[in-house]
């Protein structure tokens, strides 16, 4: 579908900086009216539509969250179990968290729920032929707690029970499925308020 290609011609940060420099260098010059143009993806997109990409992201995140909940419930032991469902920053952030739990003798209770999955971007062939899917999500911690070795809750007082995050997924190493690659807090503009 043409719009899939057209809507995904985004600037990489480095490229954006370059364009920025060029724009600044050419003082007084402003680009004329922009016409939508097409960039061909470098390989066959993993998904035929935004909807498919979103559904795959939701499935991938469910797999991640289930695994994370389980490892935290067991005090962070055997954190390597997260490897099949997280790569790069997401894996690092998870494993750091598991180690912290082990070090502090914490364990989690309850299951983290999530909802309001919303596609930010599906970018086929974003880098090295990888497809990147970015979504927004509301995480719901209302049924979860973190206890220390004495069974006392150690969550921050006033912890927001529902928080917005931006998730990124990619099919690392050309795999035929996507996995979570990063999870970052997102601007809270009330989208996760029930």
């Amino acid at each position: 579908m043409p719009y899939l290609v057209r809507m995904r011609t985004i600037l990489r940060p480095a490229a954006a900086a370059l364009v920025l420099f060029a724009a600044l260098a050419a003082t007084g010059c402003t680009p004329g009216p922009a016409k939508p143009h097409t960039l061909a993806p470098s390989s066959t997109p993993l998904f035929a539509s935004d909807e498919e990409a979103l559904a795959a992201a939701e499935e991938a995140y469910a797999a991640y969250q289930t695994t994370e909940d389980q490892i935290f419930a067991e005090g962070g032991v055997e954190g390597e179990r997260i490897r099949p469902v997280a790569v790069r920053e997401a894996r690092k952030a998870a494993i750091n968290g598991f180690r912290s739990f082990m070090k502090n003798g914490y364990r989690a209770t309850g299951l983290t729920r999530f909802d309001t999955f919303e596609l930010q971007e599906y970018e086929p062939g974003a880098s090295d032929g990888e497809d990147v899917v970015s979504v927004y999500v509301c995480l719901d911690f209302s049924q979860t707690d973190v206890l220390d070795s004495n069974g006392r809750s150690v969550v921050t007082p006033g912890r927001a029970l529902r928080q917005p995050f931006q998730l990124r997924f990619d099919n690392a190493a050309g795999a035929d499925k996507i996995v979570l690659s990063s999870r970052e807090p997102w601007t809270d503009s009330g989208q996760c308020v029930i």
Partner: protein
Amino acid sequence: MRYLALGRVALIVALLAAPTPASTAGAPCNADSIRLGQCPSPTTSITNGGVQLRAGVETRSNGSGGNGGPGWGRGDAAPDPGAWNEEQARANGNYRGVYEVVSPATPPRVVTLNDIANFAPAVGGNHMEPNGWIVVGLDTNFYSDAAPRVVEGSLLGQPAAVRFTPVAWRWIYGDGTSKFSTSPGASWASLNLREFDPTPTSHVFAAPGSYAIDLTVEYSAEYQFAGTGWVAIAGTIELPANRIVATASDANTVLVNRDCRQNPGGPGC
């Protein structure tokens, strides 16, 4: 939020030097910090000519592995005149800090459609009456419910909103003809017309068969950073709506809502 009152550290970020997504101003929070409620959510607010990103940080210094890293990292201890007792917090091994990032609201260059490519607007639907079938020789009414949509996201590294406004509709009827309209059309009922009446967006199919009717909606786009007005982006974006597949038949038998005596305003009466 209480922590917003705690501004102590101000970093002036030059957007021109290194565009950085506001939401990713630093290393991602570790999974334990997220679970413990120690990762702040960036919030934006309007200031004098600038977009402000503020993030509160609450950290148990003897707890998690921390959420260090540029931007998100632990802030200087910030005494809170309010309920937060800094000394007590320190004694408990907890402290909190606040980072404030101020950056210019004015984008450094002309924003183009490429820049908003990661904002995915919902495409308005393609509808037809009668739903799913066509009477050869009579008008079939097509209309769209495409409406202006505001999509929030990151633009040039800043939290921003993009407003998509539908401006034109093109139906491709699948019989070799098409229609360009600057109106989305409307249902017969909302136009106060009878079924099979001609409308500005209706079409008459001449032969029986199966037809795939496609609609493309053309949108204009505007962007807005917090605290600024809407700014138009040159050009338009064309997005395909859903395809309708319908069967056209001769009007030998048409199911109508009661007969002409009971419903004199009905089709064909």
